[in-house]
């Protein structure tokens, strides 16, 4: 690929004073940027080429559904949308609980294209939103790094960002999630902040607040901005770098930004009430105090100034102590100290696993492993330290910001694997700086050596090529990651076998069946992972979904899944549930099925309903479904619905995920009946049987049945002693 090598060619132009060469460099940079945009867009199209143009995974389906609603009903209906097809019977106020940035962006693109007579479907627009915005994001990276270390570094970081696997994983075509636009917004906000800091222009400060507003609209991660920028301001003040430019960059952002943020329904008064935002206000006060001090210092003589300082410090300290004491008391009175659960789990990595299993249960909220760093940012991990050093030579306001950004994002990515995404731009910027500095030195030395002895130049050229080869390995890895690792839409699975490509399209099979062959008002219960997909693809009301705002409701479903059949039937019946959907991978070896997620159902259920005790399901500290499994486990609904008549497939009931034969092979369902199982058994749908008319006879019957099916041991003894 020409882009990274061409960018090195642009670097020397910076060092020439020739206007013609400068103009040439400008045009070249423009074309390189264009190519980078094309690269960023096209590297994310593997999923469309290898699979199809389809929305991926779980959350994007919700966003897609919201966008459909927006394009159909309009913006006002959207703000007032109360969705009664989810969280039955509670419902959810979508307009007030969703970050609308992504939806509005895609809706606007769709509307724009349609008014230009380009009749694309909403789905197509949604699929391609993320690749388009990743092109924007790489341009924003160019601008940001240009503010820090000049155009050469800017181009290098833009190329790196276009290809960094961590970002690709969240922005392939079809992964229509908040992060898709939020990363662009994040980088662009930082760029405008640095631009304001470098120029002191109020125009850029206003733009900065608007960019911040867009970020608040798009993603809950905006709190990262509103904490990082104050940290940087504080750093500047502490290191004696206070200037009026800093004031212009910060004060309008806090005032305008907070006002604008409060306009977003999902944020609202949180913009001034929660602890995530306190740092910005505190720094806002500090910067004013500092500004005032600098002002006083300017008008007073040094002696008078000293007197004034002692006076103000004594009075000020007393007032400050009082205010801080009140604040602390206020904050401490709330149980979570005014922080939201997700933020708290960031500050204290062990918090979630201790208190909020629902946050801990999400795989992207787990801390990452070391290999995932190499997978996601690859050689950048080695270039980052060099970049940090380059930032200190010399240290400017802007470069200190980059250092702070990389330091904090490394910490956050270490807590939650999802925040690797915030680290990726920082890593790209610093690596870009490092690479560009290295190229500067090496190409500079070539130029210096050229008229003299040529033997040294060869050595240098060798070093340059080793540098470019490093960039090439990164490139190869990125393309591989984009094509193989991050393009699977997860609703369609494929495997390559000797007979060729095999497609597992079971999820959509089940959702299509539900949508065409059940009543439109039927309620479907499943574990919350499949909630968004069920509402979007099957158009059926669900009990819980991926929004996870109501822990008790999720615990109710978890309890039902971990209860015996009769109790589960009663819970589901009380929720008006007609169908229960379980995901089962035992036949084909699909590992992320409901049995593997079962421990979270037990934990979350048990957290609210104490009669569900985790030790009842554990044998030797493990969830087992083989012959060693506990009777509670073998009788719970999840086990039964997953393995119902499974033994008839191969005669042994060998579970390919757990790699064992299941514990109880032959059993009957009394309160549920199988109504649909997909081709590869990945999704199984059961219907709740209606109550029988003869209650007395029924009660007896069910009692005798449950007792006979309760333990497999008893049936074993029956076989041994048929006369007893």
């Amino acid at each position, binding site marked *: 690929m020409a882009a990274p090598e061409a960018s090195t060619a642009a670097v020397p132009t910076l060092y020439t004073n020739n206007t013609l060469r400068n103009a040439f460099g400008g045009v070249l940079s423009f074309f390189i940027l264009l190519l980078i945009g094309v690269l960023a867009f096209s590297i994310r199209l593997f999923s469309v080429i290898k699979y*199809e143009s*389809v929305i991926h995974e779980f959350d994007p389906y919700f966003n897609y559904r919201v966008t459909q609603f927006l394009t159909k009903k309009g913006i006002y209906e959207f703000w007032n949308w109360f969705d009664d097809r989810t969280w039955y019977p509670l419902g959810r106020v979508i307009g007030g609980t969703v970050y609308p940035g992504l939806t509005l962006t895609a809706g606007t693109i769709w509307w724009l294209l349609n008014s230009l*007579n380009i009749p694309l479907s909403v789905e197509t627009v949604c699929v391609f939103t993320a690749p388009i915005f990743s092109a924007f994001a790489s341009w924003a990276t160019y601008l940001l790094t240009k503010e820090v270390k000049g155009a050469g570094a800017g181009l290098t970081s833009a190329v790196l960002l276009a290809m960094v696997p961590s970002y690709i994983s969240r922005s392939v075509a079809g992964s229509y999630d908040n992060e898709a636009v939020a990363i662009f917004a994040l980088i662009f906000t930082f760029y405008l902040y640095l631009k304001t800091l470098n120029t002191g222009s109020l125009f850029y400060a206003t733009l900065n607040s608007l960019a911040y507003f867009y970020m608040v609209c798009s993603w809950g991660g905006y709190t990262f901005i509103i904490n990082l920028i104050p940290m940087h301001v504080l750093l500047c003040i502490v290191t004696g770098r206070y200037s009026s430019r800093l004031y212009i960059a910060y004060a309008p952002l806090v005032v305008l930004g907070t006002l604008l943020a409060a306009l977003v329904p999902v944020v609202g008064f949180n913009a001034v009430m929660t602890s995530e935002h306190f740092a910005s206000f505190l720094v806002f006060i500090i910067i004013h105090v500092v500004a005032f001090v600098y002002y006083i210092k300017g008008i007073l003589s040094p002696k008078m100034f000293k007197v004034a300082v002692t006076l103000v410090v004594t009075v000020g300290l007393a007032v400050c102590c009082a205010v801080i004491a009140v604040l602390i008391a206020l904050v401490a009175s709330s149980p979570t100290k005014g922080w939201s659960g997700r933020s708290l789990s960031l500050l204290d990595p062990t918090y979630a696993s201790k208190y909020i299993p629902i946050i801990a249960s999400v795989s992207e909220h787990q801390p990452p492993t070391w290999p995932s760093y190499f997978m996601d940012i690859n050689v950048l991990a080695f270039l980052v330290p060099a970049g940090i050093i380059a930032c200190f030579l010399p240290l400017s306001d802007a470069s200190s910001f980059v250092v702070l950004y990389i330091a904090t994002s490394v910490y956050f990515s270490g807590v939650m694997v999802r925040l690797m995404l915030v680290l990726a731009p920082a890593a790209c910027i610093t690596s870009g700086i490092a690479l560009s500095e290295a190229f500067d030195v090496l190409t500079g030395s070539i130029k210096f050596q050229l008229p003299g002895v040529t033997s040294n130049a060869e050595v240098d050229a060798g070093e340059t090529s080793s540098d470019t080869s490093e960039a090439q390995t990164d490139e190869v890895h990125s393309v591989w990651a984009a094509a193989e690792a991050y393009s699977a839409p997860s609703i369609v699975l494929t495997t390559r076998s000797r007979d060729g490509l095999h*497609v597992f*399209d079971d999820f*959509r099979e089940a959702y*299509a*069946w539900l949508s065409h062959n059940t009543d439109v008002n039927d309620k479907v219960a499943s574990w919350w992972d499949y909630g968004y997909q069920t509402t979007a693809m099957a158009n059926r009301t669900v009990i819980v979904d991926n929004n996870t705002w109501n822990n008790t409701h999720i615990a109710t479903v978890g309890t039902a899944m971990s209860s015996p059949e009769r109790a589960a039937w009663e819970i589901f019946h009380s929720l008006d549930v007609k169908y229960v959907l379980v995901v089962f991978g035992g036949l084909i070896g699909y590992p992320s099925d409901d049995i593997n997620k079962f421990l979270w159902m037990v934990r979350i259920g048990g957290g609210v309903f104490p009669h569900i005790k985790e030790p009842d399901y554990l044998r030797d500290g493990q969830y087992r479904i083989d012959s060693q499994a506990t009777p509670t486990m073998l009788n719970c609904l999840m086990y039964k619905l997953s393995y119902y008549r499974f033994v008839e*497939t191969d005669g042994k009931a060998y579970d390919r995920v757990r790699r064992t034969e299941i514990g109880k092979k032959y059993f009957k369902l009394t309160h549920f009946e*199988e109504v649909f199982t997909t081709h590869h058994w990945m999704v199984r749908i059961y219907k709740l049987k209606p109550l029988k008319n003869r209650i007395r006879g029924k009660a007896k019957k069910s009692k005798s049945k449950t007792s006979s099916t309760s333990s497999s041991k008893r049936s074993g003894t029956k076989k041994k002693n048929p006369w007893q």
Partner: protein
Amino acid sequence: MEAWIRARVTLALTLFALLFFVSRSSPPLQFVISNAERRIDLSSHIINVHLTLKVENTGTRPASEVVLALTPTEVDHLAMVDALAIKGKRKKTTSVRLEVKPTELPDAPPIDAKYFTIYLADPLNSGESTTLEVLYVFTHFLEPFPAEIAQSESQLVFYHDTALILSPYHIKQQTTFIKTPSTKVESFIRVEPTKRVGTEIKYGPYEDCPPYSISPIHVHFENNSPFAVVEELVQEIEISHWGNIQVTGHYTLVHAGARHKGVFSRVDYQSRQFSNGASSFRYLLARLPARVHSVYYRDEIGNISSSHLRTNSLKSELEIEPRYPLFGGWKATFVIGYGLPLQDFLFESSDDKRYLNFTFGCPLIGMVVDKLTIKVVLPEGSTDPSPVVPFPVEHRLEL
């Protein structure tokens, strides 16, 4: 900006099955049918009835209008009626298609019946006779009984008819053959002489039946052929300036046989294919024009990965599989779209007009379409479009 405004001329033609002109004529009851043979094919859910009539003019004047009678229920389910006149003898026969129109008889007939008139090409002189072949096609005519079946049961249906052909004429001799799809016949009413051999039941021959004589019968038999019905098909044919025709069909498919009852067990369905879900169907075959390209098969949630396309120079066959097997009462929706080269279908006439020659109907084989809408999207700048359809249709122009 005229260029930007897309002048989308949409011509929508809507055909409702069973829409016929009603015309009136005098009752030409001067014929006698000397021999009638009826062959009823019940092997799928589309019933074909071949009726061979030997008509003799016993009146005094030449006559050219032969009347056919059908019961109201039969007319309700009638999809098509077609008549041929057979000329010549033995091997040298030629057939001529005749015009058939619904009529009403002014004098009150003894029973409730609806009539169709066949207009003979040449009037039949007194004492002459001719042979007519009539084809009736009935849809939604087999009544599943029991109306709900479990997965392991096979589908049984009722066929109602009369053993004697309903006719306003005297029939001297008549025979009826009913062909069932298998030898599994639960019951049938005998009207002696009746004989059952293999998959065929023979009623008759009956001699000298007076006009309007009937003798109700029913056959209760197994029919596991796919009862695939497209409830609604909207087919859009978009003609492009760039040498391409894009055809997009939106299908709502339903299994119109006996409703599925109770559980659907995948393990039974997979392990015992023949005894389980015998009446369900998985595959459908679409016959598309030759030189078809960029075929896609999807539904509202994405591509359906189970389809095969076989093309050769004469025709293309697309074998599709809905996302799940269809049992009685189950529905599925999907879209089949494809492109065709324009020059195969568009012809230019000398008077500066262009004709699109396109087959009216559904490319899926063995399918009943309840409601068909065909939209022809003409390119920008087209003027005065007019449809030419060999049968009456509703049509309107959308701009």
